[in-house]
């Protein structure tokens, strides 16, 4: 025990002594500071929206939607000859179109939602790659879009990210109870005559915006991790929707910050570093919950053996 304490103390001393180098130095470059801010906003916004993605079981939709913004991004990339300025708008238009397209296809009785998603997602992604393949520097450009290029966040990009991120959070707050009702109990939503379909489409559009906002941080391919992983960890820790959103946003932001520093010091691509950090946090939460559960069961059994408890109270598994 004392050994552990000493190690922790020494660790703290080392951290404190090198605080400047470890944490402040990267932020001295305006470009890096900007990227960090963008990453934090992205972590919060996708953490909050990801809550709906997790409780509604829309992980596949999120992944597909992230991929299907590719043609919009590619189109603007081609037009601006490699600059990042227009990417946001291109992605936004393509994302909203895909979200509404999927929503429209599922209106047909014979097309299930995941089928519609599969069709739109693959077609859109193929179109995007086809467009990029006509650009000269094919491989490099594609990898920037697929895996993110956080250091390309410009002053204007950051402003857009902050603006749209705030917008998404505002709409989620304003329609909090309606989104909760259509997610938990669509039948109640219909008996109360709420415009269920409208709210469903609005939620799809909000997810599309969150994805485009996150595009430069983690890229198209890893986007779904930001939507799903922090929210899944938060789901394990909370039992109400609002706290789940808060915890999810916190984990998202933490992953962004930690991932950012890991990426800087270890020279890893930022997107994967953020995603791996989020995954590590999820695993810690998951394992902790499992251990807690088995300890609780062990105590119950011990009390039974000692005759402190007549019979185990059956925990109902619905």
């Amino acid at each position: 025990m004392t050994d552990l304490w000493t190690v922790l103390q020494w660790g703290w001393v080392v951290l404190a002594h090198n605080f400047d180098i470890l944490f402040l130095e990267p932020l001295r470059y305006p470009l890096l500071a900007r990227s960090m801010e963008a990453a934090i906003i992205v972590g919060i916004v996708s953490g909050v929206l990801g809550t709906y993605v997790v409780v509604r079981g829309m992980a596949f939709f999120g992944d597909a939607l992230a991929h299907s913004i590719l043609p919009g991004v590619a189109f603007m990339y081609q037009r601006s000859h490699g600059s990042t300025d227009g990417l946001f708008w291109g992605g936004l238009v393509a994302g909203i179109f895909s979200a509404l397209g999927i929503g429209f296809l599922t209106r047909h009785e014979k097309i299930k939602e995941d089928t519609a998603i599969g069709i739109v997602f693959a077609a859109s992604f193929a179109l995007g790659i086809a467009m990029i393949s006509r650009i000269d520097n094919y491989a490099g450009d594609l990898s920037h879009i697929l895996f993110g290029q956080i250091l390309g966040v410009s002053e204007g990009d950051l402003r857009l990210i902050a603006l749209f991120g705030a917008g998404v959070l505002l709409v989620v707050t304003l329609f909090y109870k309606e989104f909760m009702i259509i997610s938990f109990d669509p039948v109640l939503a219909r008996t109360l005559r709420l415009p269920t379909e409208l709210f469903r489409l609005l939620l799809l559009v909000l997810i599309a915006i969150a994805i485009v906002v996150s595009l430069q941080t983690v890229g198209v391919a890893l986007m779904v991790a930001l939507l799903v992983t922090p929210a899944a960890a938060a789901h394990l820790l909370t039992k109400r929707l609002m706290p789940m959103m808060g915890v999810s946003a916190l984990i998202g932001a933490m992953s962004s910050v930690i991932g950012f520093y890991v990426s800087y010091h270890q020279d890893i691509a930022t997107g994967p570093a953020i995603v791996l950090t989020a995954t590590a946090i999820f695993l810690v939460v998951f394992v902790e919950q499992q251990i807690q559960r088995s300890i609780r069961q062990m105590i119950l059994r011990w009390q039974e053996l000692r005759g402190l408890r007549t019979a185990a109270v059956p925990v109902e598994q619905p």
Partner: protein
Amino acid sequence: MFDLSLRSVLKSSGRSLKNGSECVRPDQVMIVQHLSGGYGGGRAVDDISFEVCVGERVGIIGPNGAGKSTLLKAIVGLLPHHGSISIQGAPCRQSHTMVGYVPQYEAIDWNFPVTVWDVVMMGRARQIGYLLPPRKRDRQAVRGALQRVGMWSLRNRQIGELSGGQRRRVFVARALAQEASVLLLDEPFSGIDAQAEADIFQVLDVLREDQIAVLLATHNLAQAATHYDKLLMLNQGRMIAYGPPAEIYTPENLAATFGDRIMLWHEGKQYVMVADEPCHECEEREAL
């Protein structure tokens, strides 16, 4: 609508019919006329007319596939339907908060991060209105509703931590918070034990005190004979009979409703009824 929103569940005695001036008779809360409806243009229920009085408990009985659930769904507006339904004198389309509906809820995700309190508060969505947080009035209504069904002490439980009977009581509380004057319950007794059943009957008595009419689809015929004010017998989507059990439990009506699946003896003042237990395979087959 303004007048409605001011009423509180706590003042349930004020649940009179003063507003329903168009009502033919003052004690009628719901009038259903020539109701037909079903999925995809079909007629799973066909030309059904009946009236329900304030605080009445009506059991809907019939064999599997008779259209019991469909009738409830048509009344609450979940199915395309023809005919007219008026609640307290207003057409059903306008009176969305006046009908509470508790379906069988197989589709609910019980791991959803909501507590008992949150679920009951959902019933207040229309009264609260868009863009606004719940007010004191709404919190009082939720509290009152939870106390009425005996779930107040469990208000902070996550919804999945409850037993089957408790879950149903929570959804009844939600309809109470909604200030519904008619409550539709689809098979509330399926898959729960005797104690939970007794608890739900206690809640039904509370609803009667509050003058809330209840329409309840059920399988249990013996119980139907004694626990309801009126019965509605359905077979193949058509109404066979409607009235107090003592009047309509006749061999003719029962034969028309259940065919040869049921037999009835009349012994002095007592009925003896023998019914085939509904089997799950038939249920599934008819659902298809």
